[in-house]
């Protein structure tokens, strides 16, 4: 059972959270004018890195907020969590 830092509520136990897949997959602003290739990217193509991963969580059984996290998939340790609309750099400075 992981401890996840909700950006609103602080550290809380994993059973309160729902995982939400890869972060920063924005819905196209004008879906009608996207190409099939762009749609493919939006709907289906996801990273599955070994290492640092930006992913979404929802504090579903807490404050209800969606937020993002950087988690190391090797260790299950979180680097940080952050609110929707933010995008802190990875350790080392990469975006």
């Amino acid at each position, binding site marked *: *059972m992981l401890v996840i830092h909700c950006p*609103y*509520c*602080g550290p*809380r*136990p994993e*059973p*309160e959270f729902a995982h939400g897949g890869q972060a920063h997959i924005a819905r196209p602003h004008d879906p009608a004018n996207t190409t099939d290739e762009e749609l493919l990217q939006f709907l289906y193509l996801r990273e599955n890195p070994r290492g640092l991963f930006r992913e979404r969580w929802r504090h579903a*059984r*807490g*404050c*209800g*907020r969606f937020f993002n996290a950087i988690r190391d998939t090797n260790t299950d340790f979180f680097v940080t969590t952050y609110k929707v609309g933010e995008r802190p750099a990875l350790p080392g400075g990469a975006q």
Partner: protein
Amino acid sequence: MSNLTRRSPRIEAQSWLEPLPAKTRLSFRGGPDAIAAASHGFGVNLSTDACRAASANDRAALWLGPDEYLLLAPESDAAAVRTTLAEALGEIPHSIVDISHRHAAFVVKGPQAEWLLGGGCPLDLDLAAFPVGMCTRTVYMKSEIYLWRTAADAFHIETWRSFTPYVVDHLIDAARECGG
């Protein structure tokens, strides 16, 4: 309407378990302006600190999320609360939804309260980590609950009505070991 009786989920009182009477419950959601106005209209200062409840004159406002509160008031206050909130909020964007019947509520109290809840709730309920006045949605076993510490040894708990027997029965089961 006066002859109507609300049939709340049955909760058998125990030395450590106190069923609470029917209540007026409103789900209030809105931005900072609405929160300020609602404080005025409800007569309780809605906390802008996360996971904190505020109460005054039999009314309480529980912070559930940055734009979400559970407002509790006596059953008889239902109309009055709606009116004063509407007046105070005016055109400020917000949402108020009556959820009076969505929940059942009870208090788990006494020296074993923390222990009993710790049988199914993974939060740290030590007084330092979960002080009096703290409130949150969380889980107890497989049910969602609303947990509000009203005293060092008392927790106000709300559950969705169909989950009440499940939560209460697990608590009663756990309490048998404590002689409850």
